[in-house]
């Protein structure tokens, strides 16, 4: 799977996202949801971002696509194929070079037939061609042709999933972003969905998979990024994640692994700090057994044993 000729498709550096909010009185204030996040995805590679729900993972996806709400403010850089993306570039790239696979049928127009939605907007002259492509995709993902005439509310969970993937496949994209593509699916179906991603990656796509279903993700991923309280604490290869997790770098990653139901199911004390209430320095410090005063300083991401980690004590 690892290829020396991998080209970085998406490079995120020190990305911070904050929202302007009003609190109960009269003051407007900034609420930081993503904090100095860095991540690189190369062609042919699946990077899985895992972390507990509510930690702002979807925002990461939305910021790459440039579809954050208006009161959001972005700092840091996002590069696509080596070029920095501004609002305009994102607008031009999304739906063409970058495909997005949303979570559920909620993301489909309730009053539009499936077939039309899968195709999306096309030029009149290309309608026929796109229709052919859609049919082909439906066959590939085992959707009956009659599904094209249904409305979203008539779809089952599995059908909806395959419909959404077909939608993403309509145009050849270099980067595919999937936000929680498996919840609510039966195990076999979820596995099948993930295999589809593997195929896509093997054909040269870069895939960013956001999920909390780590067990499944491990089977197809190349790299795992551990997301916690709005940032990525560790980026590691899948191999390091196997077994007892001895080769993991960050104390949170180890704790995360131990907390999984199929492992020891040992939960970490305390809870994740939330946006607006983030501590200075290491975000995990409050719950970390190894913390010292030095953890309160600014912690930078550093390379370690082929992965990356945001911890001063990791070895």
């Amino acid at each position, binding site marked *: 799977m690892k290829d020396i000729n991998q080209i970085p498709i998406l490079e995120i550096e020190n990305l911070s996202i904050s929202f*302007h*909010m009003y609190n109960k009185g009269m003051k407007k204030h900034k609420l930081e949801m993503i904090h100095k996040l860095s991540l690189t995805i190369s062609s042919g590679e699946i990077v899985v971002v895992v972390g507990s729900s509510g930690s702002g993972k979807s925002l990461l996806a939305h910021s790459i696509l440039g579809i954050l709400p208006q*009161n959001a403010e972005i700092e840091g850089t996002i590069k696509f194929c080596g070029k920095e993306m501004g609002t305009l570039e994102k607008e031009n790239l999304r739906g063409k070079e970058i495909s997005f696979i949303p979570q559920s049928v909620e993301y489909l127009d309730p009053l539009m037939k499936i077939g039309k939605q899968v195709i999306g907007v096309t030029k009149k002259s290309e309608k026929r061609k796109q229709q052919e492509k859609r049919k082909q995709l439906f066959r590939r993902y085992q959707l009956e042709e009659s599904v094209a005439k249904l409305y979203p509310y008539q779809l089952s969970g599995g059908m909806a999933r395959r419909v959404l993937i077909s939608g993403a496949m309509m145009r050849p994209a270099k980067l595919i972003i999937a936000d929680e593509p498996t919840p609510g699916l039966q195990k076999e179906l979820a596995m099948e969905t993930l295999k589809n991603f593997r195929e896509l990656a093997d054909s040269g796509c870069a895939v960013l998979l956001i999920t909390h279903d780590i067990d499944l993700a491990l089977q197809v991923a190349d790299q795992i990024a551990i997301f916690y309280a709005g940032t990525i604490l560790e980026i590691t290869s899948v191999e390091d994640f196997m077994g007892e997790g001895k080769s993991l770098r960050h104390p949170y990653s180890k704790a995360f692994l131990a907390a999984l139901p199929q492992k020891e199911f040992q939960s970490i004390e305390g809870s994740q700090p939330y946006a607006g209430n983030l501590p200075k320095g290491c975000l995990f410090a409050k719950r970390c057994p190894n913390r010292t005063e030095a953890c309160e300083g600014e912690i930078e991401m550093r390379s370690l044993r082929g992965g990356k980690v945001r911890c001063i004590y990791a070895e």
Partner: protein
Amino acid sequence: MNQPTNIFWNQKETEDQPIDIFWNRRRKTFLSIGIALLYLITMLLVGLLLRPESYGVNYNAKFIPPCLKHPFGTDYMGRDMFFRSVKVLSNSIVIGILASIVSSLVALIFGVVAAMKGGPIDGLVNWCVDLCMGIPHIILLILISFMFGRGGKGVMIAVALTHWPELTRLVRAEVLQIRSSQYVQASYRMGKTKFQVAKSHMFPQVLPVFLVGVVLLFPHAIMHEAAITFLGFGFSAEVPAIGVILSESMKHIASGKWWMAVFPGIMLLLAVLLFDLVGENLKRLLNPNSGNE
């Protein structure tokens, strides 16, 4: 270790950096409420304290167009339209307040009872609401006023008694929603009495909805009183009422006495507009969901 934090209740600022501290929307909201109240209270007080002579009959000064001495002109009996309008508006405000009090009390009782008792009582209240809303409001007002023999008493009763249905629905829906919410269910299970739950959960939640409803009900009441009097079912010609002024002005409009209609109407419009604004702003202020735009 630390206390568990909660995403909803513990959102403190990362940095104390208020943006546009003075001119953000909340300030504007308070300002608009202030202006509206100022206008209404001034009109009410001035109207109530006005000497009748200031809008008395003066046949030497009939049909004077707006000028410095009579900014709103005079009517066919030489009465000063400015003072008459103020007087009339203060009467309208009194009627509006009366209607608001009566209708909102009815709505509060009906809404709470329907939501708390449920079953057939809820059904009955809903049926009554549908009944009252099933007939165009103006027609209902005409019928009630007709029943009381067309006059001041009839129109006051009609306006006071017909503005409860919408507010009843609002209150009922709000109480129902809170009643079935998890934290209220939880407090019951924790052994809190009905009174305690009502005091600590129901009251603070329903009150804002109710208040906004009352404020928004007020302009409706004023408009309906004016309309019904205009049609001839309300106050008689001797009573200073906005409907009377406007229906008189209609007789003279063909001969070009436009000021008799324009200025009193603007005064009424302003009162209604300001109350609407206060209501809408209050709604936005009290509804935290829309606070982040």
